[in-house]
């Protein structure tokens, strides 16, 4: 299916990009980073317009994120369960709500592009935690347009190395996630050891 999505963006441009990123933002696991980098490469080849691409990717992602937020806020448990099946896991909503509350707006911003696998969970959790919608929308829009512009510009810059660049970014994302987890665990371990003394 990923092949067909990439071919669709290559052939139909911004409208296909809009539709695919919207579906992915709801929680369907799709290769969005690769799609944005391919879009950047297509721009450098003159096959796509830069501003249309950033606009379509940003607007599509925001639309999908709002669906996730709305389900969390007004959908009830059954709808949340159905949506979390799309993610391929059961939602651990209490934990995610705690994360959403602790991270606040910057957490929403960072999970739009740097820790994007957490994005759909944070959308749901922000809804269930009744995080103010306007503030959610503002941080969401800031993060999604930042992410879209960043990956599209990178794709434009390395337009003849899209697969290698995607591999680097994928590994970097997991390395950063691993580093953050290590820091949190290290801090907890230190606190625990101090209490033991």
């Amino acid at each position, binding site marked *: 299916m*990923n*092949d*067909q*999505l*990439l*071919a669709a963006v*290559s*052939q139909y441009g911004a409208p296909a990009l809009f539709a695919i990123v919207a579906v992915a933002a709801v929680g369907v696991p799709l290769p969005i980073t690769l799609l944005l980098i391919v879009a950047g*490469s*297509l721009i*450098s*080849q003159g*096959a796509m317009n830069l501003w249309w691409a950033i606009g379509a990717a940003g607007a599509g992602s925001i639309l999908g994120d709002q669906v996730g937020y709305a389900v969390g806020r007004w959908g009830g448990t059954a709808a949340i369960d159905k949506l979390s099946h799309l993610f391929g896991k059961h939602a651990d909503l209490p934990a995610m709500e705690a994360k959403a509350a602790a991270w606040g707006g910057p957490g929403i911003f960072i999970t739009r592009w740097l820790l994007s696998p957490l994005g759909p969970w944070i959308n749901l959790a922000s809804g269930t935690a009744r995080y103010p919608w306007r503030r959610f929308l503002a941080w969401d829009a800031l993060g999604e347009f930042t992410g879209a512009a960043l990956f599209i510009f990178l794709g434009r810059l*390395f*337009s*003849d*190395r*899209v*697969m*290698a*660049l995607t*591999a*680097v970014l994928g*590994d*970097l994302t*997991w*390395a950063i996630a*691993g*580093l953050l*987890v*290590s820091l949190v*665990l*290290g801090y*907890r*371990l230190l606190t*625990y050891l101090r209490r033991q003394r």
Partner: protein
Amino acid sequence: MALGLALVVAIGATVIFASRAKQNVHRIHSGNEPILAWMSVPFIAHTHHVAAATLFQAIGVQPREPHDRRSLRHLARDLNRPVPELIAQLQRAIDSAAAAPAQPPGGPPR
């Protein structure tokens, strides 16, 4: 105990992914991009620095005007040929173009 073990696993994963990222950075500078079924001929031409017309000619396709952005899978279906065969033909054309001496500015010598 469990916390310490989790920390070791997290640090290990960080190191593994960081070293993989470093290897892939090297690939950006040196390696060739793969040819995949979702790619169009102009896209492959761009990533391999070959003229699209050369690649269309290699697989015997008359490109549609103004831009033929059909994927290799789409072309294979239209031509009733397997995708790996098209990829092999394109790879040979790319290798030939890379092996050919660069032409001086203004075209080949008369």
